[in-house]
């Protein structure tokens, strides 16, 4: 199959795109007002100590030279330090990125579990309660602010019913987090065979995942329903009906033809949520990568922002590549 050369070509193409993204974000970030040296040493630092620090950080070169320096270091895996956490950006992200990934992945899986069945049902039974429910859910989910829904869920399930744990992080402070292997608490606790930690981490995940799942099921449902409906109205579905194929089979075939569009919307949502889930992260004080980057922007701590942009850009480019490979698998016309 011509897969390998295709993937090779795509990967080659990824590098320049990455540099492009980094360069634009480097320029953007440098424009953020606020002098890092002053922020680090505090307002009372003497001018020459400020100047010494600036020289150390290489801030006295032109932006372009600074970018080349940054690029050089990044190539060697050094993304610089965050003055807020005083830790290297890479270690911070190693902790925080998996937290966001775990949350977003489970959230989207839930969204798929809600969106696809409702979408297909909506397409199949054009008139009737199910279709009305699917339509309204699609519109409603798109309208709810995720951070607000999180607050509502917290109020109902924590403040009133106390079914869910306090929204204060990914695990009870009293429990020792498992040895980080993948960075996902669920997997690591399973690997460590520590059932109690797994249960606790899972309990903390319920509300945030439910928030992301309910909200993002909207676009998935709308896309599934619209495309499946279009496929059901197509000539080949009509003809299958004329040939006496059972309606269930026809709907299944129609959905299979709608799959590429659903895969597209999922990949777009995935890319968006890496940065977009920051509000839910804040409400649940999740300590995810989105929060890390937002704090970086608000406090002009530039390296974390650049690090985060690099990680999420790489992730979205990988996702888009995976999506194309899925297209190859599903649709012979793309081969």
């Amino acid at each position, binding site marked *: 199959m011509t897969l390998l050369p295709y993937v090779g070509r795509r990967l080659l193409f990824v590098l320049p*795109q990455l540099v*492009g*993204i980094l360069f*634009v*974000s480097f320029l*953007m*970030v440098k*424009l*953020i*007002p606020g002098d890092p040296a002053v922020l680090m040493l505090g307002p009372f630092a003497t001018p020459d100590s400020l100047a010494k620090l600036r020289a150390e950080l290489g801030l006295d070169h032109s932006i372009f030279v600074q970018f080349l320096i940054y690029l050089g270091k990044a190539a060697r895996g050094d993304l610089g330090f965050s003055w807020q956490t005083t830790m290297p950006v890479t270690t911070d992200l190693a902790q925080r990125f998996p937290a966001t990934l775990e949350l977003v992945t489970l959230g989207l899986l839930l969204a798929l579990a809600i969106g696809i069945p409702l979408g297909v049902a909506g397409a199949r039974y054009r008139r009737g309660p199910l279709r009305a429910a699917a*339509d*309204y859910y699609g*519109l*409603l989910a*798109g*309208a*709810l*602010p995720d*951070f*607000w*829904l999180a*607050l*509502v869920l*917290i*109020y109902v399930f*924590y*403040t009133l019913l106390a079914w869910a744990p*306090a*929204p204060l992080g990914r695990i009870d402070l009293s429990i020792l987090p498992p040895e980080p292997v993948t960075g996902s608490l669920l997997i690591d606790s399973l690997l460590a065979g520590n059932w109690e930690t797994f249960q606790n981490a899972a309990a903390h995940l319920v509300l945030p995942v439910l928030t992301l799942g309910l909200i993002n099921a909207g676009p998935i449902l709308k896309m599934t329903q619209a495309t499946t409906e279009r496929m059901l109205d197509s000539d080949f579905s009509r003809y299958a009906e004329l040939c006496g194929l059972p309606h269930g089979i026809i709907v299944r075939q129609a959905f299979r033809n709608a799959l590429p569009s659903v895969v597209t919307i999922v990949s777009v949502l995935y*890319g*968006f949520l*890496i*940065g*977009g889930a*920051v*509000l839910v992260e*804040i*409400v649940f004080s999740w300590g995810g990568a*989105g929060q890390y*980057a*937002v704090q970086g*922007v*608000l406090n*002009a701590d530039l390296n974390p*922002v650049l690090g*985060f*942009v690099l990680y*999420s*850009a790489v992730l*979205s*480019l990988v996702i888009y590549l995976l999506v194309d490979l899925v297209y190859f698998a599903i649709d012979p016309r793309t081969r």
Partner: protein
Amino acid sequence: MTVTGSTIPAVSRGAGSFAFFRAVLRNHPSFALGYAIVLLVVLLATFAPWVAPFPPEFADADVFLQPPGWPHLLGTDATGMDVLSRMIWAPRIDLSIAVLGTLLSALVGSVLGALVGYYQSVRGLARLAAGFVMRAADVLQAFPVFVFAIALVAVFGQSLQSIVLAIAFVNAPIYLRLMRNQAMSIRTMRYVEAAWLAGLPDARIIVRHVVPNAMAPVLAQLSVNIGWSILLTASLSFIGAGVKAPTPEWGSMIAMGYQNIITGQWWSSIFPGLALAVTVFGFALVGSSIEVLSDPARRRRLSGRLTAARGAA
């Protein structure tokens, strides 16, 4: 002649298209609900000074965190400001930011998209420029949207204008891509070929044929996008990168009440969120109604179902 035959006059020009529009609304409560919500929110915002019981930024310290009751129907927040009044004033900020930002992005995105889409298939310099614009759009969209918006606000400073610019910047690629695809497909239409053959300059062809035929999907997207932009404005304010307190704005109101949720005072966060959700829901309904009414095929099926319903009633 069956209703599917091409000789049935298009309903848009049929007997009283306004009467048809009213019949559609009567028969499709959801569309009517959408227009009602949007109308209500706009009216409330414009007449806020006379409608709101209390001035929006008047903080009365000794009535802070009062539960819904009298005279504060929806209670007060931690600083003693009346939740209901601020909710009524808020759309002035939220709506204007969202509408302005979306219109700006729609304008810039569509014009650029029409040009790129039209010249995409033409060889030579124009195609190169089109390719460059698209790559730039790809880079823009590869950015984590939310972080990008916050960075923009940080760069331009935290004023209303900078939020509008951020919204416009983030939404522009959506219209760029939408208009580009429309322009590319319309470019291949026979009537564009006929105009090209007749000798019309490209610019006139774009204005006469490409833009009008691409309007329907852009309008539908516009309405849905306004809703989404309201959400984005509120989210920015929620994390402190958007509208700063005490200006009445749904996002910042939710943020102010957020700590109290855990201790049980839910009203100062929940109510503004509800208002925000209902407004965005209204715009989404308007968007879907535009989508249905502007697509001739779905309109014809709709008119068929209308009479069937009327027949059965």
